[in-house]
Structure formats: structure tokens, C-alpha cells
């Protein structure tokens, strides 16, 4: 009997001491954390993309609850999520203008010929260490998937040598923008589906020789636009999305098909 009693007492004693210690510690070192922070973190998409400007979803939740404000909406969360968060905090939900990433290049293997065979590390920054371009146009997309790897939402893929963005999956977080060494990924409002898919500032004749669908800076789009929404600078057209009314006159006017309408990719209601 005693052989059971003594170990039992010893172990029981240990258990008592440890649990007392834990209890004291829990009380003494208790940090109050607003339980809403955990709830908000749970509601957020959880990609930790940094699109809000904070270090992750938890940091964003911290900010939102501490300051009780939704003045910096999460660009990735949809309207329903934002209104749920708003309800939790007793605030009106706001949502940011939905933006998506857009590639200013249509230099596919058909349109823009390769000038060299690059056999180094498959990364756009690594390739820039070796040469400025692998295609005839020196502004073209390298197609080595650095942005594809940067995207946390699986919204990008490589097709025919350039990046193709899925507008539905793209949440506009902005992580791919800084990952491009050629600076040809830019944000645009999701519902403004007309884009100039070129970034070439060389003279018209040179751009045209480099790529079949290059912007040659002929200014026909600028003349066709009745809303003062497209301008040519340095032989490159650029759309002012605030003024653009999606009338598509520039698309018809462009002789090289450098302006694209992204019909297929967007929800018809948002147009």
C-alpha cells in the first residue's frame, strides 16, 4: 500500500506546486488584450500581404481596434467582410475602391521576338544582373515568374512568355508591383477595363520594329478621346482613369492594337 502512497503523494505534491505557480504567474503577468483583436484577425483574409500598409493581418487588427477606425480599409477583404468588422466595432463599413494589378506589356512570343537565349537563374531580378532584356523591346516583360511567386492569391501565371493576371483572383494587395524590376506592373481600378499594354518610350519606328503591338506614340488615341483621358508623353500613351468613361474610342483608333479591353476577366456588374 505504502509503495503506491508515497509516489502518489510526491507526484501529487509536484502537481500542486506547479499548478499554483502557473496560477500565480497567469495572474501576475496577465496582459489585457482586447478580445476583439482576435475576432477581427479571424475575419480578415489572413494573407499577410501588407496591402493595408501594416506588417500583417494581426497588426492591422491591432490598429483598427486600438484606434477604433476603419479609415484604412483592407484592400483584399470584400464588402461583406468589411461590414462584419464594422459591425463588431460599431462603425460604418467602408471599402476601398477595388483595384487590380495590370501588366503594361503584351510582348508575347508572337509579338516580340527573343533576341537572346537566357539560361541563368529563373528570376527577373537575377536576369537583370545579366542583361536588360531578352526580347527585342527593352521594356518588355521577362516572363521569369518573380511576380507569380510574389502573389499570395495565385492570381498570376506565365503564358506565351508574359504574365497574365486573373482579375477575379487579384485582390489588389500590391505585392507584385514592387517585385517587378522593369516596373511594368501597375495598379488600376478594377472596373476601368481599358489599359494601354505597353511601356515603351522609344521612338515610334523603333518600338514598332521591336514589337507588333507596341505603342508608337502616334497620338491618334489622344485625338479620338473626347474626355481628355488619354495623353501621349515620350512616345507612350497613358490613361487617366479618373476621366476615362470607357467609351472605347481610343481602342478603335489605335493602329497597333496597343490598347486592350479586358472584357473577359471582369464581373459585368462592376462596369
Amino acid at each position, binding site marked *: 500500500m505504502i509503495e503506491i502512497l508515497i509516489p502518489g503523494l510526491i507526484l501529487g505534491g509536484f502537481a500542486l506546486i506547479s499548478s499554483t505557480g502557473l496560477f500565480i504567474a497567469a495572474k501576475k503577468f496577465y496582459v489585457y488584450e482586447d478580445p476583439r483583436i482576435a475576432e477581427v484577425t479571424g475575419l480578415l483574409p489572413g494573407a499577410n500581404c501588407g496591402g493595408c500598409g501594416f506588417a500583417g493581418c494581426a497588426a492591422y487588427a491591432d490598429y483598427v481596434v486600438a484606434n477604433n477606425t476603419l479609415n484604412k480599409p483592407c484592400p483584399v477583404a470584400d464588402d461583406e467582410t468589411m461590414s462584419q468588422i464594422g459591425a463588431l466595432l460599431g462603425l460604418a463599413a467602408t471599402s476601398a475602391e477595388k483595384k487590380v494589378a495590370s501588366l503594361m506589356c503584351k510582348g508575347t512570343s508572337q509579338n516580340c521576338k527573343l*533576341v*537572346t537565349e537566357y*539560361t541563368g*537563374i529563373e528570376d527577373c*531580378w537575377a536576369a537583370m*544582373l*545579366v*542583361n*536588360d532584356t531578352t526580347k527585342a523591346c*527593352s521594356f518588355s516583360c521577362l516572363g521569369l515568374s518573380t511576380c507569380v511567386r510574389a502573389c499570395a492569391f495565385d492570381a498570376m501565371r506565365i503564358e506565351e512568355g508574359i504574365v497574365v493576371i486573373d482579375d477575379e483572383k487579384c485582390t489588389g494587395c500590391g505585392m507584385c508591383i514592387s517585385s517587378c524590376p522593369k516596373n511594368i506592373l501597375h495598379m488600376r481600378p478594377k472596373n476601368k477595363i481599358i489599359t494601354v499594354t505597353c511601356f515603351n518610350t522609344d521612338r515610334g519606328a523603333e518600338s514598332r520594329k521591336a514589337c507588333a503591338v507596341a505603342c508608337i506614340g502616334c497620338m491618334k488615341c489622344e485625338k479620338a478621346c473626347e474626355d481628355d483621358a488619354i495623353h501621349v508623353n515620350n512616345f507612350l500613351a497613358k490613361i487617366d482613369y479618373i476621366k476615362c468613361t470607357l467609351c472605347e474610342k481610343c481602342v478603335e483608333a489605335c493602329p497597333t492594337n496597343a490598347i486592350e479591353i479586358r472584357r473577359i476577366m471582369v464581373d459585368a456588374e462592376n462596369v
Partner: protein
Amino acid sequence: MLKTFKKGGIHPPEEKISADQPITCGEIPAQLLIPVDQHIGKPCEIIVEKGSVVKRGDLVAKSTGFISSNVHSPVDGKVEKIVRFPQLGGQIRNCVLVTPENPGISFQEVLNNEPENNIDIDQMTAEDIRKTINEAGIVGMGGAGFPTHVKLSPPPDKKIEALIINGAECEPYITSDHRLMLEKSKEILKGIAILQQLFGGIPIYIGIESNKANAIEVMERECKTYENISVVPLQVKYPQGGEKQLIKAVLNREVPSKGLPMDVGVVVQNVATVLAIHDVFYHKRPLLERVVTISGNLVKHPGNILLPIGTPVSYVINKFEIDTEKVRVMISGGPMMGKTSYSFESPITKTTSALLFFDESRILRRQENPCIRCGSCIEACPMGLAVAQLTEMIKANNIATSIKDSIMDCIECGSCTYVCPADRRLVHWMRFGKLMIKREN
């Protein structure tokens, strides 16, 4: 026992197949594309425009800061236009397209028409020398292109105790410095004397690898007429010509990590740069041309040719009858540290020491295989870096503070990649790591 650096190093086949070919002179090509970005530092500002008439030696692009370098026109001619064009090495930069007045005449004639200039070295001050070198647009012609006047202006707290002239030419195939030492030894020594005057009479060592025995002999003979200038024969090992390795071999001093040669009281200059310095003072000629080795397994008659800056590669291809259908790799510089290029119209720059043309048999095996931790790269690294571990961390995007110094110490010599049995592009990873560190800041 010949001097050398102890750590690492490899012995690639020397392939000095053009070593016995004397320097020839080409003709002025039909067009010259003068690049304005031939150096380390701020790019130049172009000061000519379409239609400008230029004479040989005229400034076409101005230096824009302390670490920058002037660019001059090597021929009389007219500026056609300013273009952006792919350079040797793949970068797309601005060039001045010049149509020479007399295309097709021998370049030797142009050189022969130049006046000789007598100078009195003892009367020149250090400031004068630096200023003249700066205005002449002289940069390190071994390949790096660092503006020479900057190297020759160490801050006052760094006392320079010795000058080393780099005649090692450790890269396979390249023989331009070798031929310069054989044919222009007197001029080189005169140029060295100018530098000796600049630094106030310090000892000068000329490091030459032992595979250039005739050059060692010739230079030793010339040195006899000078005081405190000597030749140091060196063991043949790559990268003997790397600054840090050269200083270690000649003076047994190690440049500290993250440091520069001036931290151990030394300045290193390439032989061709010294010859250019001589030309500035004795011929009043800024840096306008250089000797380029044309070699590789596709060149039937490899040689060394003096070319004006801005000569397109196509001129060389025609002159040496290279079959462009067979060319698969074109390298400017040596195979270990040189850059590949894709355009046959790219121009020669101040730092192009060689043009190498190779076919299919020299293509790298394409696929990177997993690292098997064999340690060959670590053995080969002349800087003693743990290459295998560093590149694995760079690849995993895991650049900790503790390894940043090691990555920045890499001299990108290529020894590690050369010996790697798994075909890993180690130098590319190291350069990628350096870029990531720079982007973070």
C-alpha cells in the same frame, strides 16, 4: 618558389593561343558607336548632338561627378544621332553614333600623325597629374572600369606605401596585357614613373604570372634603368590578378573584409591603364583606343588588335573571318569574369580586354542540380567564403545579418562555379544575394 596567394584558387586551362601574335592595327570602321557608360559611377552627360562635328580627342560626354569619367571621340567625324543600344554585357545604354570622316584608312596612320610631347616629370605636382588623368577619361582597363583619378586620390589619412602594377592577366585566352608588356615596355615604365612621382617615390612592384616568361624578361630589363621599380614573378593561378589576391601574393598583406587596398597602404593599377596614362602625358591623347584580344575556338587566327573605342563587334567579325552561324556564346572579357552579349553590333568600350567567340561545345550544361555539399566551391574560393552554405541561404531567401558581410566580400571571380559538379550558378546566386541586400536598404 614563386609567390602566390594561399587560399583557394583554381587552374583552368590557360589557352593563351594568341600570346605570340603581335599587336595589329585595324582600319577605321564605317561607323562608331561611342557608349557613354563605360565606367563605374555616375553616367556621363552627352554634350554633342545630331550634326555636331567632332575631331579626334574631342569630348563627347562629360563626367558628372567625382566618381565619373569623360568620354572622347577617337576619330574625326560627324555625329549621326544619339541612340539607345545594347552594350557588350547586355545593358541598354545611350551611345553617340559617329560617322568617321575617313573610314577605311589604317588606324596606324592616325596614330603616327600624333605629336610627341616632352614632359619633365619632376616638375609635375600630384594635383596636376590627377587632374590630367581625370580629364583624359582614364578608367581601370583591366575590366572593372573604376575611374583612375579616384583610385589615385586616397583620403589623406590613408598613407600609400607601395604601388602594384597588375600584369598578371590570369584569365584564360586574354593576352592583350602580355603583348603590351612585350612591345611597349619602355612606355609602360615611363607611365609608372609618372605614378611614382604622384605618390612621392614609393616602391613599385610589377606582378607578372610566370607563364609570360618573355614579358618578365623584357620588363626586368627596362626596370634596371629605374629606381625602386621591380618585377615580381607570380605563380600561375586564377585569380592571381584579382586586387586582393595580388596584394597578398606580392606584399603578403590581406585587405580587410569590407575594406579597400588603400587600407593596407597599397594602390593597384593595370598595365594597360598605366600605358594610357603614359599616352596622356607623352602624346596629349585621352583614352581613345585599346588593345583587344580576339580569341576563342571559333577564331581561326586569334590575335591582338588595337581598336578605337566604339568599334562595333561586326568589324572584328569581318576582319577575323568568324563564322557567325556557328557562334553561340560571345564573351567580352575572359571566360571566368567576362560578360556574355547578344548583339554583334555592340561597341568596344574602354574596358573590353578581349572578345571571345565560342560554339556549341562550350555551352554550359543547363540544369542546376541539387547541392551535394561536396565542398569544392569552398576549397576553390580565394576569399575563404562558405559558398555552399551562403548560396543555399540566398536561394531560400534567408539572408541573415550574420552572413551579409560574407556575401559582400565575394569578388565574383567564378572559381566556385567553375568547380561545382552540380552545375549550380553560384556566382549568379551571390550577385543575386548582393542585389537583395542592396534592395533591402
